[in-house]
């Protein structure tokens, strides 16, 4: 065990979540509760990173799970795993929220590259197996790839805004973002 307060959460196989979502699609509210237990730390953690304000992150988390409940029967497994589906919804909702509330503020403090590093305090982080693999794999990205991916994914910036923040040409950021994600994908494949 490491820091006090650090909660170890067993890493579950993706199959559990897929099976749960299939039951949710049939209106099984107990499966929905289990799905919430399974995925709410990931959804809340991501929302929290993107919108920053904890109360807003709770709202986003609620919106995400309601959308999952509503649309479970329309989930198409051909488009990815259930967990990816939920996290994709979570990211879109969080980004929507941050763009709505910060479009004005953005105008004011356009250059804030210090936002690149704002890791959550360690005691709140839930350590999953994912955590180690992702950290290892992010280290394989070049600095510019990493910053492009993180500013877009965790701060909700468009690649246009990222280019402005990092003072790089648009096409450069566009390709670095893609190359970075491809490198992350390839590395994570090897870590399974």
């Amino acid at each position, binding site marked *: 065990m490491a820091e006090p307060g650090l909660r170890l959460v067993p890493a579950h196989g993706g199959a559990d979540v897929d099976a749960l979502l299939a039951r949710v699609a049939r209106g099984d509210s107990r499966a929905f*509760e289990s799905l919430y237990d399974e995925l709410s730390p990931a959804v809340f953690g991501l929302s929290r990173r993107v919108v920053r304000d904890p109360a807003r992150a709770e*709202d986003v988390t609620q919106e995400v799970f309601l*959308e999952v409940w509503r649309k479970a029967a329309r989930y198409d497994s051909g488009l990815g795993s259930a967990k990816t589906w939920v996290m994709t919804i979570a990211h879109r909702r969080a980004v929507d929220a941050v763009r709505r509330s910060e479009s004005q503020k953005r105008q004011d403090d356009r250059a804030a590259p210090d936002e690149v590093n704002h890791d959550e305090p360690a005691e709140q982080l839930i350590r999953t197996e994912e955590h180690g693999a992702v950290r290892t794999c992010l280290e394989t990205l070049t600095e510019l790839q990493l910053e492009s991916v993180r500013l877009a994914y965790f701060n909700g910036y468009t690649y246009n805004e990222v280019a402005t923040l990092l003072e790089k040409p648009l096409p450069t950021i566009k390709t670095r973002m893609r190359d970075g994600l491809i490198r992350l994908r390839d590395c994570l494949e090897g870590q399974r």
Partner: protein
Amino acid sequence: MSTDLHTLSGAYAVDALSAEEAQLFDKHLEECESCRAEVRELRAAAARMGSAAAVAPPADLKARVLAAADHQAQLPPRVRPAEAVRRRPWLTRAAVAAAAVAVVAGGAAGVSRLGDDEAPLASGVTRVFEARDHREAEVSTEYGEVRVATSPSRNEMAVDARDLEPLGDGRVYQIWSIRGSEHQPVIALVGDVKGASMAMPAEGTTVAITIEPSADQQQPTTEPIVAVDPRAV
């Protein structure tokens, strides 16, 4: 152009495109199998990165989410045939006249969808959808499908917006009738109001839905998520 578009897959996978670019890329995806595969994989990688940021939510959030879901109807599985309406981003006002909505005669396709296990529509709305001579169209928006029906014998039109996803932050869907530069608020979809019926608007009038910060707007503050010429239904 297509090579250029293709490199947007990374930004698209992490929601880093502007709304306009995302629409362009959506179109591109429909024709590009390898791009769809790439987006799928990059999203999976991004999702794992997001999961690594997991933080335990406050314990009381769970009860709130479960209670909210309890009051929320689920959407039925998609039963439409493969060639049915594709996800169609909102139409700009200029494109309204040409709005290629998928027109369904008032037959089987429309009726089966009335069986959705969602809140019932006001009787005025149902009357138009059930009128013997009604014509019906389904239009896709970024927020879900909207059904529109018109009935010449009743000289009415109706909108069924039950499939639109709920909005947060007190925002509402607002229906407008638009003629030239004039915008008339028709009704805000609040509470149990999930649709509207109205007298058939005059020729040259379009009916549009916007998302508004509150229910009392006199002018739209956002671009329509959908706009329909009722005469084209």
